[in-house]
């Protein structure tokens, strides 16, 4: 159960953060359930490299803390898997579930973004920042955040926010979007300390009033 932000898991194969080298993405066909690390590499690729007899001459893997961490974890899991294979075949499924839960938790943290302190190396995960900004947007009456992505905007600690929104139509949309933008900028500054320099907002659906107008049809949600 994702407690933090159910929208941080990308619905489609995740995109690499950096420029794709082509070979990195193209040689490996992602299998269902594969996960991308915060650096953009697929976990399956990192683990395949770690399994190779000859150490891969890949400068990224050597220098990337996420890839190194994933490879270190694999050694532990390999040892446990070998031990279990001998004595406890059913336990392998439970182990696999726990391993994938651990990986999903890590991947769900999202990319790392710089906090607004140019003198120190302070970062925040995209999932933590997005959660705060989504809450800020939800605080605007008649608006609900649908998705929220954050990316580095050029040099330094500048951040771009891209949010999709569902909104009620009882007031002009530009006015409501403006309120949401202000709420995002305020929360980014006051709650997080994130230098948001651009906010892109798209309204993607209509938020229906609740409770619905009398005679609006059959209620489909809710309980007794």
């Amino acid at each position: 159960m994702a407690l933090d932000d159910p929208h941080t898991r990308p619905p489609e194969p995740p995109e690499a953060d950096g420029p794709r080298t082509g070979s990195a993405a193209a040689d490996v066909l992602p299998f269902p359930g594969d996960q991308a690390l915060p650096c953009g590499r697929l976990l399956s690729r990192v683990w395949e490299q770690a399994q190779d007899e000859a150490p891969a001459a890949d400068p990224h893997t050597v220098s990337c803390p996420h890839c190194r961490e994933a490879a270190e974890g694999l050694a532990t899991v390999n040892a446990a898997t070998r031990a279990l294979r001998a004595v406890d075949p059913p336990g392998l499924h439970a182990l696999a579930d726990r391993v994938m839960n651990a990986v999903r938790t890590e991947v769900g943290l999202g990319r790392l973004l710089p906090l607004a302190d140019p003198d120190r190396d302070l970062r925040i995960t995209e999932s933590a920042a997005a959660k705060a900004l989504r809450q800020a947007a939800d605080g605007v009456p008649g608006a609900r955040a649908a998705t929220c992505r954050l990316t580095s905007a050029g040099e330094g600690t500048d951040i771009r926010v891209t949010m999709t929104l569902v909104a009620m139509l009882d007031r002009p949309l530009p006015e409501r979007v403006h309120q949401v933008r202000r709420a995002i900028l305020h929360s980014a500054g006051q709650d997080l300390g994130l230098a948001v320099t651009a906010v892109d907002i798209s309204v993607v659906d209509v938020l229906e009033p609740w409770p619905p107008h009398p005679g609006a049809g059959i209620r489909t949600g809710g309980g007794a």
Partner: protein
Amino acid sequence: MTTVDPTALLGVAAEAALGVPGVTGLQPRLAHRLAAAAASTRTHPASHRTPPEAGVRAERAPDGSGWHIEVRCVLAEGRRAVDVARTVHGRVRTAVISRLAAPEPVTVTVTVTRIAARYDEP
């Protein structure tokens, strides 16, 4: 050249970070979470507790000069994340430097992994 036990630095850094108001916990690194997943096949799952040091990495700089410390923090809602992170940065750096036998450069990275709402699990 001095010998410092990295494990001792992990403990010192974890303690310093956890002492900062607004820090509710340290987020275990993936390797520790995987180790915990493997360990709980042999023990009762609840019996495996991840120590706070699992949220810290201490590494020698590639050229051997000094240390790099990375701390992964879970914060409480209600304080500005960058301010808490800045305090963690300062206290961890000070604590680690004081633990070294001889002066060496220490760099610190602080990552806020989660901001826990009051109703969240710690």
